[in-house]
């Protein structure tokens, strides 16, 4: 096999052409089996009938999407009204994920900048320090966050000890706790791509701009940001998308009181709702939304290149 490949590449001159297909095959198989098949299965399930307490009946039905968009009352016989319940859950998730992305950007950009402007020998150490906490499983970090934020946890005790507050702040089981959890969970996904972009930035450009009387803000806006933009966009997507589907943070830090999209889906499969078609439909709607955002981003990026 190897000898054959070598002789063929020698004949074709440029090298790898003949091997393109066989070399790509494994990744195609992986994408096909582990991504496309499950997504297709989910799409099919979302159009089937729910079985009693989990499972599906092989019978076409639009019930899952109907449940998402239309309100028909507890007994399903009231005149149909637009259903805001699940749209509210989506809106809450988008708002939480968007805020987490913004906070990660505000903290992550200066951090990445700081690392990228260190002595090259020390940069690896800084990156290493950023990633160390993330070697610990997300579940354990989220539970630890619970301990830190609780009414009589270290955070509140510290604030009370230094006299800033007299009674503990109610943080645990609120949307704020969920936000803190999301921000903390996904911060490195913002820092690392921006760092990679800033590291490649040619600082002579800034100097040239300053020489031409551009103020620091103008340099940042006109020179730096456009250059490192791909890193920022990548970071934002890497934070926003997983935050949108998060269910550990709302469950453990939000007290499972308010659903985010992830917890809504989780309840359909692992909780007592046991409604697979509905869970699949919610996942499909989420997937469509995320896909739309990504396609839009690709379009903007390609237009800029032109």
């Amino acid at each position, binding site marked *: 096999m190897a000898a054959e490949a070598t002789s063929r590449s020698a004949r074709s001159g440029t090298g790898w052409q003949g091997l393109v297909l066989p070399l790509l095959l494994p990744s195609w198989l992986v994408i096909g089996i582990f991504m496309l098949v499950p997504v297709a299965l989910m799409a099919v399930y979302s159009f089937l009938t729910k079985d009693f*307490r*989990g499972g599906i009946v092989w019978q076409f039905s639009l019930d899952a999407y109907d449940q998402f968009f239309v309100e028909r009352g*507890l007994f399903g016989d009231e005149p149909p009204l637009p259903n805001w319940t699940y749209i509210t859950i989506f809106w809450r998730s988008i708002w939480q994920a968007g805020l987490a992305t913004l906070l990660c950007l505000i903290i992550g950009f200066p951090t990445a900048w700081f690392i990228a402007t260190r002595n090259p020998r020390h940069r690896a150490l800084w990156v290493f320090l950023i990633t160390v906490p993330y070697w610990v499983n997300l579940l354990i970090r989220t539970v630890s966050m619970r301990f830190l934020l609780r009414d009589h946890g270290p955070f509140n005790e510290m604030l009370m000890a230094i006299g800033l507050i007299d009674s503990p702040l109610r943080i645990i089981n609120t949307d704020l706790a969920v936000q803190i959890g999301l921000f903390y969970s996904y911060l490195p996904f913002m820092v690392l791509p921006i760092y990679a972009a800033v590291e490649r930035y040619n600082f002579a450009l800034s100097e040239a701009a300053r020489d031409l009387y551009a103020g620091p803000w103008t340099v940042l806006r006109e020179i730096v940001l456009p250059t490192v933009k791909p890193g920022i966009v990548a970071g934002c997507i890497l934070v926003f998308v997983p935050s949108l589907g998060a269910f550990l943070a709302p469950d453990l830090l939000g*007290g499972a*009181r308010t*659903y985010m999209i992830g917890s809504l889906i989780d309840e359909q*499969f692992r909780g*007592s709702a*046991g409604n697979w078609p509905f869970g699949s439909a919610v996942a499909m709607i989420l997937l469509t939304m995320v896909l739309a955002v990504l396609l839009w981003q690709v379009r903007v990026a390609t237009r800029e290149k032109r």
Partner: protein
Amino acid sequence: MKKLALVFTLLSTPAFAAGELKVYHWFEYMPQELVDKFKAETGINVTIDTYDSNEAMLASLKAGRLGQYDVAVPGDYMVKIMADQGLLDSFTADEMPNFDNIQDEWLDVPFDPGRKHSIPYQWGSTAFSVNRDVYKGDINTLAIIFDPPEELKGRINVLDSQGEVLALASMYMGIPQCTQDRDQLKTLMAMLLEAKANWASFGSDTAKDVLVSGDAAAGMIYNGFSAKARAEGANIEYAYPKEGAVVWMDNVVLLKDAPNRENALKFMNFLLDPKNAAAVTNYAAYTPGVKGTEPFLADEIKNSPENNPPEGATFDFVAACDKETQRLYDTIWTNLKR
């Protein structure tokens, strides 16, 4: 190709699996020493995965986990649901030498007539506990959870368990479980949605922890779990609400397609030994359904306020609703949790 065949042969050899037992169990419900003892006596390796509600266990088994586990430990009404759905294997009394140790009142139970699929594990009650530093008034009413006094508002944890929450809510409203009356169902949902505004969190496996840490000042909880919270230093009292509370029995069931049926029966037989049943009780602080455990029970468990309801306290099992009512219950639960 020959190698591949060999691998398949190895995987399917029963001898390979002879010393295994896969248990699907509630959290914090079986002392490690007892698992070790079972291993020492039989040489069988026990693997335990945990769940935190009957419904979650059912959902997980139906989502493809059936065939991976040998035994599970569903509550009473869930045994019936699982049996009706054909998720359980059956056995006969001859297959289990200790079968006669089952207490008479738990032998022929409505959820498993004649005990064909299940044996008793532990039984107890579900109500709630209140932190007595925070609230000093009368706690023996379900209003503590569903219409709480000012001191407890926003500081209540509720079990993430549809069956128990809806059963207690029905008792509070004085309506029958699994009611099909539309007005009753509507008011039940309205009452729950209103009550939710005063709740801090939903959580079953965290129910003890939030009471001990003080995150919650009141919380729905199982009696033994509450006793453990008290033992860990929480100044809490377990309530016996005048409207009634839930009584339950958890049962070890033999699952359909159990990969190690023989070992599962050995395990169930082991748990019917009074000494071992008492060991579970001494750990989990509930009550065994097995004869002859008395001499092995720890006094503080036997005499705990959580295990000794006052005269006149009433209890009821969670009912297994018919499909149509269950669908409405699911809708109410989804509306409550969103």
